[in-house]
């Protein structure tokens, strides 16, 4: 089962890019996607297609990653189509709702922008190992340490949270099975009954995690942990590909600025 944000192991150029570069690029791209007009969007689309090709991800990944948000996309489209302002196309109308040309244009653009946002971030998570993401974030947040943001501890916290997600799910299944064995019913009983059954899972789950947290802290202390700076096995180092990626992002931004200055408009 493929899901949003899943990591795909690989050794491509995109995989090997410095996580910091990837994170910043994704942010820059996201901003440009939200602000950009058609020419910028087209350029970004090309860039994303190139990144998918270079990373060795199957192109199918683009469609799969949109699947969880398909209803949002449809709703966006629908809202813009029928509630946008502009010239109504009289032949396509139901009561007070009627299609407008501007609505069609805005709707499609919003769907396009939204898809690009999802693709951008899903390439980031698909090609970067979670711990790489975390340590990349930590390095990026490091300057904030001066104003008292404990970036080291934050990064460790996020990384431990990531590490325990699968354990959490396993535990949930175990508790569920234990309750099923004692005739708990999670499927029928209507919304109220099902909510009550789910609430019954919550207490043992939370208890088990408090206990785990306790054990984990002891284990971490035993391994010499104390809050504050630690050293990392994989120090990040920028390579040629990273500088290339940065250059591409700078060019993209320049293009966007020129585009909006000259108001090289679309229709």
């Amino acid at each position: 089962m493929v899901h949003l944000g899943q990591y795909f192991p690989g050794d491509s150029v995109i995989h090997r890019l410095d996580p910091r570069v990837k994170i910043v690029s994704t942010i820059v791209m996201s901003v440009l996607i939200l602000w950009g007009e058609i020419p910028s969007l087209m350029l970004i689309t090309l860039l994303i297609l190139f990144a998918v090709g270079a990373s060795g991800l199957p192109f199918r990944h683009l469609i799969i990653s949109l699947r969880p948000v398909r209803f949002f996309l449809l709703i966006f489209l629908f809202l813009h189509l029928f509630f946008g302002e502009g010239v109504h196309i009289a032949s396509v109308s139901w009561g007070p709702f009627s299609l407008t040309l501007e609505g069609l244009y805005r709707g499609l653009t919003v769907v396009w922008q939204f898809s690009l946002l999802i693709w951008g971030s899903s390439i980031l998570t698909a090609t970067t190992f979670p711990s790489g993401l975390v340590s990349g974030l930590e390095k990026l947040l490091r300057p904030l340490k001066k104003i008292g943001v404990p970036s080291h501890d934050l990064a460790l916290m996020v990384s431990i949270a990531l590490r325990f997600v699968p354990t959490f799910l396993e535990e949930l299944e175990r508790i569920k099975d234990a309750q099923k064995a004692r005739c708990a019913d999670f499927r029928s009983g209507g919304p109220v009954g099902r909510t009550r059954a789910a609430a019954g899972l919550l207490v043992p789950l939370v208890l088990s995690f408090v206990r785990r947290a306790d054990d984990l802290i002891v284990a971490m202390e035993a391994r010499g942990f104390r809050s504050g700076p630690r050293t990392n096995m994989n120090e990040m180092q920028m390579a040629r590909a990273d500088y290339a990626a940065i250059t591409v992002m700078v060019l993209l931004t320049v293009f966007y600025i020129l585009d909006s200055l000259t108001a090289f408009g679309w229709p």
Partner: protein
Amino acid sequence: MIEARGLIFKYEKSGDPVLKDISLEILEGTYVAIIGPNGCGKSSLLRHLDGLLLPDKGELLVDGMRTRDTGSLREIRRMVGMVFQNPDTQIVGTTVEEDVSFGPGNLGLPPLEIRERVDTALDLVGMKKYAKRPPHTLSSGEKQLVAIAGVLAMHPKYIALDEPTAYLDPSARMIVFRVLKKLHQEGIAIIHVTHHMEEIVDADEIFVMNGGKIIQRGKPAEVLTRIAWLKELGLGAPRVTELLCRLKGMGLDIIAESLTLDDACAQIFSLIEGKASEA
């Protein structure tokens, strides 16, 4: 040498002490086992060895450093590695190698040195091929090996293990046990708390605890052959030893000190051969 002098410890001020006047010494490079019924204080004692718990009275010294001195705590924790019972709650990293690098990272070692220590440690426990795997894809036994590697990467002089095989199936238990023996041969002192008597027949010394006290210490051959006494404590002896003791009780000519299967077999076979040649 790890040295405990008159340790007294309670979890709550008003409650009964969990450790009542414990003194012991653990020499470098030895294999020491601690056994005792549940609640006898063995885990609490173990947690004193690297200063996770501090005694209310008495003193614990690791190579002359007191666990009470906060200044030496980090060095003590580097020298005394701890492996816990539950494999799931001692792994911190999102991958195996990242977890092993946690300890050395805490020591503030340079990246290249950490990399080298991680590789060596994983190699030593036979987990190198899993270096990039996320921990939840490993079996309990493999997780325990990762935990041991995590301790090894800190280059400890002593490794204390709190029932490390309790969650494991027999074959995983054998593997972990073999790794422990190997580490012992490498010169690391092992302090092994366990309920599995078969694992400690080779120990240099066994401490038996009950009610917060060390009630007996000695060589395995002395301790593990006191079968009725062990049973009274709720511990049980190795089955092989129990068998030999029963045979001896039946009047057969047997030295009931053997703790291993091979040794017991040899004795029983020679006895059978002896009978056969008489007849």
